[in-house]
């Protein structure tokens, strides 16, 4: 499923472009010679909670800036909520709430005054309900008690919450949240997750970027993975997860016959020292690993076959590939940020 072209979503042929909250074609942003975003074709279905993953510097924020019309694309097209961006921003942006590269506020104004200010910038935001909307938005992110405090005196997590409050000042069809849990305590992180769930329950499409996979995995229905400006995978969470191979690992002193039995079941038995399945000696026993692949073999059947084949099974593990493994496999193991 690597960087598939936009269009019908896999497994759902009825889905048309009109069902996409965000759609890009060949979206590219170059800073000098470096392509920060390189020919990406995003397809974010309406109603989804879409995780936008990628390590530091992979181009997530740059993509979001282009989606919101803050930065112009070097090439490629963008449709957000069915309208062309940035040319139709008047129609699109009032329906979009956003948190881009962290919250930003006037430090000398209170939290409420800041929200008030940003709300006046939206010509479609009714002034009659402004005060009420500000108060409720603050309450929703747990800042009601700090509403009158100068933002300069807010903690990082409080600013982050205020940023989210700004994104939900009005009912939105689409939320774009760039690292919304950055700087939040575990409690705050959980609350943001439940907030996203409840907003999604109201029908809002949520596009949320993160480099913390564990956060995303729990709430997202879909995800895309960026790596050095390229979109290396996109699909539903299950599709992404199933990219990982299910493997079995047998601990036995009868290595040769175990290999024969596994092979006869159709499993691809790993040769010695394959990347993820080396044979390791442990006392008298050895391990053999094999990929189940696309076969529909049940674990208990494998064990039964091994035992029937005279293999003394001293250990048996089924390893479902985790999303984390996928993430690392797609984006590389290295710690260094790609320049």
């Amino acid at each position, binding site marked *: 499923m690597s960087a598939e072209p936009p269009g019908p979503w896999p497994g759902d042929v009825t889905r048309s472009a009109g069902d996409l909250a965000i759609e890009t074609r060949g979206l590219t942003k170059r800073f000098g010679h470096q392509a920060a975003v390189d020919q990406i074709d995003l397809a974010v279905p309406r109603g989804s909670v879409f995780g936008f993953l990628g390590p530091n510097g992979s181009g997530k924020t740059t993509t979001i*800036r282009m989606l*919101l*019309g*803050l*930065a*112009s694309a070097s090439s490629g097209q963008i449709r957000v909520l069915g309208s062309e961006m940035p040319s139709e*921003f*008047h129609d699109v*942006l*009032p329906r*979009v709430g*956003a948190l*881009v*590269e*962290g*919250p*930003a*506020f*006037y*430090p*000398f*104004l209170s939290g409420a*005054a800041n929200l*008030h*200010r*940003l*709300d*006046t*910038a*939206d*010509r*479609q*935001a*009714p*002034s*009659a*309900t402004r005060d*009420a*909307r500000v108060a*409720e*938005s603050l*309450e*929703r*992110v*747990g800042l009601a008690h700090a509403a009158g405090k100068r933002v300069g005196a807010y903690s990082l997590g409080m600013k982050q*919450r205020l940023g989210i409050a*700004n994104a939900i000042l*009005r*009912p939105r069809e689409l939320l774009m949240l760039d690292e919304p849990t950055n700087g939040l305590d575990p409690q*705050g992180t959980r*609350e*943001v997750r*439940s*907030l996203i769930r*409840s907003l999604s329950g*109201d029908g809002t499409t949520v596009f949320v970027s993160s480099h913390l996979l564990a956060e995303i995995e729990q709430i997202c229905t879909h995800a895309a993975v960026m790596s050095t400006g390229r979109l290396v995978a996109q699909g539903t969470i299950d599709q992404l997860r199933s990219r990982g191979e299910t493997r079995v690992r047998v601990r036995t002193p009868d290595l040769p016959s175990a290999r024969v039995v596994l092979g006869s079941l159709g499993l691809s038995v790993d040769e010695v020292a394959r990347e993820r399945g080396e044979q390791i000696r442990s006392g008298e026993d050895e391990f053999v690993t094999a990929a189940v692949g696309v076969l529909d073999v049940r674990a208990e059947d494998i064990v039964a076959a091994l035992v029937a084949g005279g293999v003394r099974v001293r250990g048996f593990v089924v390893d479902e590939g985790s999303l984390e493994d996928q993430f690392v496999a797609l984006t590389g193991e290295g710690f260094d940020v790609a320049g």
Partner: protein
Amino acid sequence: MPDSAGELDKATARQSGNWATGTGRVARHSVGLALFVSELSVLYRRRRTWAMLAALAAVPILIAVAVRVTNSTRQSGRGPQFLDQITQNGLFVAVTALVVSIPLFLPLTVGVVAGDTIAGEASHGTLRYLLVAPAGRVRLLIVKYVGAAAFCVCATLVVVVTGVGIGLALFPVGPVTLLSGDTIGFSESIVRLLLITAFVTVSLLGLSAIGLFISTLTDVPVGAMAATIVLSVVSQVLGALPQLDWLHPWLFSHYWLSFADLLRQPIAWESFGANALLQLGYIAVFGALAYGRFLTRDVLS
């Protein structure tokens, strides 16, 4: 965030209720007055703005107190224009204070406000949120410029009003003798003072447009402020060089001290008109440059 999921749901429900009544896709576009009011309220909720206005108010106060304390009846002819008239008529404190403020203090404060317009938002990071709201780039630019222009009015008024106040308090006020030798009464002199205020305000509009343009070039507000202020000094230095006579009518500071023409009988309107035209030219040119720059610019701050 509410502490429990239950509270969260309640909050959600309440909010949705409010939203349902408050908005709809049938958008009623406001003219953008709310953003302008908000712009002014942000400007005047900054301590910096009040510090600058206080500094401007200090100019006439210092002048008046200095003249009063030294009690100089000497008509030395030195010092700023109109200084000698203060002891006879307190209203001249305001006029003298303007003469003193125009070369540096007023351009300084206007440079700070105009240079901060876009660059200040960029450095706070609020520019991206204003644009995403969406404020609209053209609309934001206009609101920012009108806000800076409103500050020009305010800054000039502070000097004049403080000048009149302290002048009335410390000195006698009588008929004003004009440059042309004619004499006018108190109310007529107030009208003249207001005209002078308008003249000085208009004089500063070109500089504001330059500041706005420079502000779109950078994310560092101090840089934009400094550049604007330096330009106002450069313009005055060029204006003082007789070798550059041909250039003088094109300098935005050319008419800065010509408001004295409003103290003649009859009023010499030529400089008022010429100044207004010149400043309009600067607004058009630098407004267009700011528009060109800001409309295509990537907001990456």
